[in-house]
């Protein structure tokens, strides 16, 4: 493999482009904004950031002709396959949409320091690197890039003590989980002598899931001598298992799975909403990609015979916790945070199924989750109350009373998306949940499927309550909202029609997710 940056293997060119853009934008804005008159360059810089992301998307799309086989670069530490290609394109498109949405919020709440947008851009760079990381070291560094920038984004509204608290909380807990990840990686390196996913893949290629669960050392040696023909090869399976559990805990923390989800409602609610939309919409996909790379593509799931039930237990727990805690919430933001916890629970159920159909429904669900999340959070950002806006940054549920009278179409969009998230039949969210439950039943997790179905029925309660508040509340006075501009309403309507169109023609998404899931099992 090639070791140096040479022109032949510049598949990294989108990331390099984005990195150079970051440095140029930083220089540019620091020179402009320290001019004598201290001009505000936030709006301008936002457009430049969006422009550079659009160019980055074109460069990413340019790589598609390389996808005929799996490309490994930089001593196998950097991969370009269809999974990373898809995840990167999705991340960039969604972050462009989010950046368009946060424009008004930045202006209203006076987040006037230019560093904010550049830090957002750095976090997107971290996601792109994480999508194509092929060893633990690169993955750790990419996670560090994106989570460090998230801590700063959470604490960025300095005049609000809520925001500072959220940033501090996120920083302390998140860096603890990063330390656990690093500990797990070092133990894994001690046990296996490598942390490259490709090498680990070729070590455990012939092992089916769960074969190494209770294996003793001698068993393992036999397996290796028979199947792998690598000669005598000794390591302690318990040590690998322990390090994998540490890695898993850390990644579950980043995904906010149930016992480790406690930070997420606080951080979501207290940090400025322009940061929260990134935490909620974008951050999950690339960490799920890493999870699949560790456990499916590099065949480390061979160690998880008994621990599969551990993951299933966590998934059910997070479905339950997310649903029942969300019923109690009065703030819209923390309600959405708890609902995202329960969605991650559904995703983990299909992850722990371990079949191709399970992985396929995982991809299906995460795409639908991101689409619906983008729509919900952008409506949340764009509904700016006219009267009490300056005093109040957060929204109660009651602020949406009689939304259909003040803005009919947006309330229709909002309720349709909420129906889709809740999983009502004539919408695409129904198919996403159906896939999850079917994959759970196929692997004879009947009990888990029953609990998940019943809980999803309960979860429709709080989604429908929002719709009830928007349409059928018996009050006389309600709020007026600021008008939306063209491009923002255009994006919301696009997502809305996409959710309806995908019901009429779900083949598009099914084909895409099957392709991704087949690649995960090579």
């Amino acid at each position, binding site marked *: 493999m090639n*070791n*140096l*940056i040479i022109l032949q293997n510049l598949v*990294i060119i989108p990331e390099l482009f984005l*990195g150079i853009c*970051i*440095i140029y934008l*930083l220089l540019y804005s620091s020179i402009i904004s320290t001019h004598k008159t201290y001009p505000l360059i936030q709006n301008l810089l936002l457009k430049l950031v969006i422009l550079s992301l659009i160019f980055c998307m074109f460069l990413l799309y340019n790589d598609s002709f390389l996808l005929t086989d799996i490309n490994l670069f*930089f*001593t196998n*530490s*950097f991969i370009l396959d269809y999974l990373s290609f898809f995840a990167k394109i999705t991340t960039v498109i969604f972050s462009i949409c989010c950046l368009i949405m946060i424009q008004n919020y930045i202006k209203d709440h006076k987040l006037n*320091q230019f*560093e*904010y947008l*550049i*830090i957002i851009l*750095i976090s997107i*760079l971290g996601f792109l*690197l994480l999508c194509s990381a092929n060893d633990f*070291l*690169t993955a750790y*560094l*990419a996670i*560090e*890039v994106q989570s*460090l*920038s998230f*801590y*700063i984004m959470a*604490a*960025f509204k*300095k*005049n609000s003590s809520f925001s500072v608290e959220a*940033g501090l909380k996120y920083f302390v807990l998140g860096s603890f989980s990063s330390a656990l990840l690093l500990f797990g990686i070092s133990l894994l390196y001690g046990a296996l002598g490598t942390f490259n996913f490709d090498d680990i893949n070729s070590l455990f290629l012939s092992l089916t899931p769960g074969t190494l669960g209770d294996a003793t050392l001698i068993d393992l040696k036999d397996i290796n001598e028979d199947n792998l023909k690598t000669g005598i090869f000794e390591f302690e399976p318990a040590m690998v298992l322990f390090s994998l559990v540490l890695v898993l805990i850390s990644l579950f923390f980043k995904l906010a799975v149930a016992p480790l989800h406690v930070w997420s409602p606080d951080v979501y609610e207290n940090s400025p909403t322009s940061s929260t939309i990134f935490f909620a919409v974008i951050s999950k996909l690339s960490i799920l990609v890493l999870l699949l790379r560790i456990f499916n593509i590099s065949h480390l799931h061979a160690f998880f015979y008994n621990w599969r039930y551990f993951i299933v237990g966590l998934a059910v727990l997070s479905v339950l916790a997310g649903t029942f805690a969300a019923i109690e919430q009065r703030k819209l933001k923390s309600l959405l945070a708890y609902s995202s916890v329960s969605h991650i629970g559904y995703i983990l159920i299909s992850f722990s199924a371990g079949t191709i159909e399970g992985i396929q429904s995982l991809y299906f669900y995460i795409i639908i989750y991101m689409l619906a999340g983008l729509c919900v959070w952008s409506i949340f950002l764009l509904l700016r109350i006219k009267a009490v806006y300056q005093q109040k940054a957060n929204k109660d549920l009651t602020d949406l009373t009689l939304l259909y009278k003040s803005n009919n179409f947006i309330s229709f969009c909002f309720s349709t998306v909420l129906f889709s998230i809740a999983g009502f039949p004539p919408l695409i969210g129904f198919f996403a949940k159906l896939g999850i439950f079917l994959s759970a039943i196929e692997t004879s997790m009947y009990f888990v499927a029953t609990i998940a179905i019943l809980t999803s029925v309960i979860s429709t309660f709080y989604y429908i309550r929002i719709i009830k508040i928007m349409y059928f509340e018996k009050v006389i006075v309600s709020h007026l909202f600021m008008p939306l501009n063209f491009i923002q309403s255009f994006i919301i309507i696009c997502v809305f029609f996409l959710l309806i169109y995908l019901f009429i023609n779900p083949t598009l998404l099914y084909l895409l997710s099957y392709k991704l899931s087949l690649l995960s099992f090579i």
Partner: protein
Amino acid sequence: MFNYFFFQISFVENYIFFFFSLVLIFSAFSIITVQNPIYSVLFLVLNFLTASGLLFLLECEFLALLFIIIYVGAIAVLFLFVIMMLDLKILSTSKDIFKYLPVGSFIGGAFFLLVTNIILDEFSLNSYFSCSLGLDFVNLYTNWYSNIDYFTDIQAIGQLLYTHYVIQFLIAGIILLLAVLGSVSLTMNNESQQIKKQMFFKQISRNNKNILLF
């Protein structure tokens, strides 16, 4: 001739080693005995410097440089700043050493025994030449390849870092940039330039009685 020269070098090395060790022990002892906390931190810096000198003698250049950069450059300076900010007066003229003596001596003794055990296992007395103190231990394990094909730590790490792991190196650079950006933007306070305003009630309420306050 060459042998003699080599012998001379190792002879000098031994003296430098003893010098650094003595300074190390002296400064470590002074950290816990001096009264002024600032002197104590300065002795800590001296301690780290001499330790990194010892590591240089053992040809662990990378570790030595890390010692200087991280411990001296960051941690000891952080201690110094903390002590300056806390504004400690010299209160305890006589430190209560004996209070911590049992636990401290137990830990120190255990650590000493451990290190002695390792040294006696891994090293042996050289019978061919000895320095004047007679404590010339020689490592049993010698990697002769590394003696022939000499290659320092920093060279090796640098060659790996700039070729095989160049992408990770670049990401680490971005992390450092992010840390600088974040800490500057979070701590810089643009609204702190307070405009001096008239305080009317203070001006009005001034009279001859409350001007001079004792």
